[in-house]
């Protein structure tokens, strides 16, 4: 049980070291550079895909390391995933209406 004198580490909590933070920080900077760079190359329909892929990667890094989800319980991981899932439902199913509105017209 908790005692005041106890250091919090002993709760089995993981402290992410500054080295990891710095590494992620660097990765984010690189990611930003790549997105900007990629946007200047004409890749046709792949441009937005790449931009989003990089953004998703960056966001995942932030969530996993800066926000400690990698070191958190299953419940926390599930929570994050369920948020992403509902978000995709909202976007995906709304768009399904827009995309299929023109169906049957050719």
């Amino acid at each position, binding site marked *: 049980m908790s005692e005041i004198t106890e250091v919090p580490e002993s709760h089995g909590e993981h402290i992410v070291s500054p080295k990891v933070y710095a590494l992620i920080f660097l990765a984010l900077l690189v990611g930003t550079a790549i997105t900007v760079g990629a946007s200047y190359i004409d890749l046709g329909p792949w441009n937005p895909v790449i931009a989003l892929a990089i953004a998703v990667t960056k966001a995942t890094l932030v969530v996993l390391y800066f926000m400690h989800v990698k070191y958190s319980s299953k419940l926390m991981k599930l929570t994050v995933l369920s*948020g992403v899932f509902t978000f995709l*439902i909202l976007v995906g199913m*709304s768009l399904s*209406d827009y995309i*299929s509105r023109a*169906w049957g017209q050719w």
Partner: protein
Amino acid sequence: MSTLISLPDQSTARVPKKNYITNENGIMSWLLTGDHKRIAILYLISLTFFFFIGGAMAALIRLELLTPQSDLMASDTYNKVFTMHGIVMIFFFLVPSVPATLGNFLVPLMVGARDLAFPKINLLSWYLYMAGGCLALYAMITGGVDTGWTFTTPLSTHYVNTNVVTTGLAAFIAGFSSIFTGLNFIVTIHRMRAPGMTWFKMPLFLWANYAAAILMVLATPVVAIAIVLVALERTVGIGVFDPTKGGDPLLFQHLFWFYSHPAVYIMILPGMGVISEVISTFARKRVFGYSAVAFSSVAIAIFGFFVWAHHMFIMGVSNYAALVFSLLTMLVAVPSAIKIFNWTFTLYKGSITFETPMLYAFGFMGLFTIGGLTGVFLGVSGTDIHLTETYFIVAHFHFVMVGGMLMAFLSGIHFWWPKMTGRMYPEKISQLAAVVTFIGFNFTFFPQFLLGMLGMPRRYAAYPPEFQVLNVFSTAGASILGVGYLLPVLYLIWSLKYGQVAGDNPWQATGLEWQIQSPPLTENFTEIPVVTQDVYDYEWLERQKEHEVTHVG
């Protein structure tokens, strides 16, 4: 007829001196309380207030519809009245009804905790609710709003000049109140269960509230942003929903119903939780198919997210989208059917008594089944074309919301009243009220199905004369219904002072909350219980009683 109620010897019984009500005195001790039970009471009082505001609006609606002409009020007044009726009833009564009163009161008791995880946020949620409610009333007094509770664009953004922004803000704030309640429930149920209280030992009331809480947390923000965009469109003139600027008014419908369909399950699920507890107690039996009922709550919550466009079948969504959403609507109806049948079979080989909560629960089962099945009429895209935007819808949602949820709410209030106050209400009168409500309800809303079939549109201040007869029935029924709702208020208040002392467990129910004193202590449990018995374990309860008797004797 034999009853179940076992009250202590009234000549010696006392309501315990030390309890959460008497713990502290003074108005500030209530307004600044962190105690989930006191917050529940605050909610109960304010909800009742808003219910009667909404009810008064309903009375006006029904009076106006007594005659085909719009003679009691002009159509713009009528529009404001039903808009306010819808907004008050939905956002300020039904959405918070069971979760914020019974849920707040019972979730910690049932999981065996001393309070919800975040008492301050819980109190904040009540303040937000009150702020939203007062703002809505303010908007109503200073000119009202006439968009319908659905805020349909571009009507709400460009074509009315009533208090849309104020009312929207009110709904926005109330939404956050609901989010905080949901958040609190989820954390409490996940993290604060007493030792031994595994998921499958939880009462079904908790499962139902848990499922509803998921919806509150994940769906409410979407309507919040939709309302923000409407407000920006009205005030600043941005063009997201405005067709003249290239926006799509249907997009608002998508965002609005992404919340408001799950919201109907926010409204019904906690009520279903109540029904599970009540039926089990008065049948003295474990709920039939416990895990099926538990999982169907979660299934409703999850599938509830996939069906919102069934409110837009004729609004110009793509036919293919209509196909998919219609199919998914069929799927979401099934878990409700599972629940109904499981409750029915809980009665099988039970030992049934018919106290007031049970009567309301029976009312719920019948009326919700009708309401739910007519929901399927609307979910089938073909028949929806004929029935949509008519009184058939009005009847459908009053059957599920009033016949379903309101009945469940009253059932729950009667069931846990002795726990909340330590006193019993007069049983005979309350049974009468339950019956009156049931009869009045059917008189009010059943004719509306017929009106809808005949094509009478909703939100009409004036209607063709041939619809009058059924409307007169409906209005007559509403006055019976009004009496049915007034009665409980009267005798429940009466019982606070004159009711019989209830004792700890008047219904001999199994939940953790019944094993402590009523009304409970502020800290709920003097010692955090360790749960060893199964849920709805009536045999355990019997042994427990015997044990006590031998112990005392």
